């Protein structure tokens, strides 16, 4: 399934909804949404990942990019991720740096 990332911003919360497969070819589209979100100086970045069916390390690098663009104080939430995506995040220790939730609790 082709990758898609859509951004919505409400107050201090930027939400990006991810769909499809996030590989290195798709990562620039994700990073473009992150940059767009950073423009609103949010305090929190929420990634809705329920329909994200695949994520390579290019996706993980995009999370680092988000911290760089938005500042280290911004909390990154990953919500409703599928099991294999969760496994990749845990295996690489990124679960220590993001907040994983089954459903978004602000």
């Amino acid at each position: 399934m082709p990758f898609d990332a859509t951004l919505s911003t409400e107050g201090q919360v930027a939400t990006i909804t991810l769909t499809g497969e996030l590989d290195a070819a798709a990562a620039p589209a994700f990073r473009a949404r992150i940059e767009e979100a950073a423009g609103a100086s949010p305090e929190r970045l929420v990634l809705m990942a329920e329909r994200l069916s695949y994520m390579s390390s290019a996706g993980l690098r995009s999370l680092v990019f988000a911290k760089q663009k938005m500042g280290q104080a911004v909390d990154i939430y990953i919500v409703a991720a599928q099991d294999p995506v969760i496994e990749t995040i845990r295996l690489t220790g990124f679960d220590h740096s993001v907040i994983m939730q089954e459903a978004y609790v602000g």
Partner: protein
Amino acid sequence: MDVLEVPGVLESLQPIADFVKEASAEAGLERREAYRLRLAVDEIATNVVLYGYERSGQTGLLRIAKNLDSERLTLCLEDTSPPYDPTAQAPPSDLSESLESRPIGGLGVFLTIQGVDDFRYEYVEGHNRNYFTVRRPAAV
């Protein structure tokens, strides 16, 4: 299809993924194993495109071939970019460190090695060859 040859560019990651998915289905891999194999191949193919071909200013092909026997599925990913042995790369630094404070390199190769039962590299006559092997589920 036993062999796929595509240009060594990021747009080729999708057809390579489709090839891997098809081979995994034929081998009867479970969903989790199939996902991990696709991730392993994707990470190495990405490295070949970004660091093998693009960084060296070369163009070339990515060739993936499958070999299926009763016990194992082996995929071989081949390219003609400068020699690069992923297995010689240092593992990523402390994985429990925060996003902000650790270097990001090496994650792709780490995921590759974690994702398959055996990963092997060789350089033969101008070709990098990366072999990914997974055991097939035991016949019922």
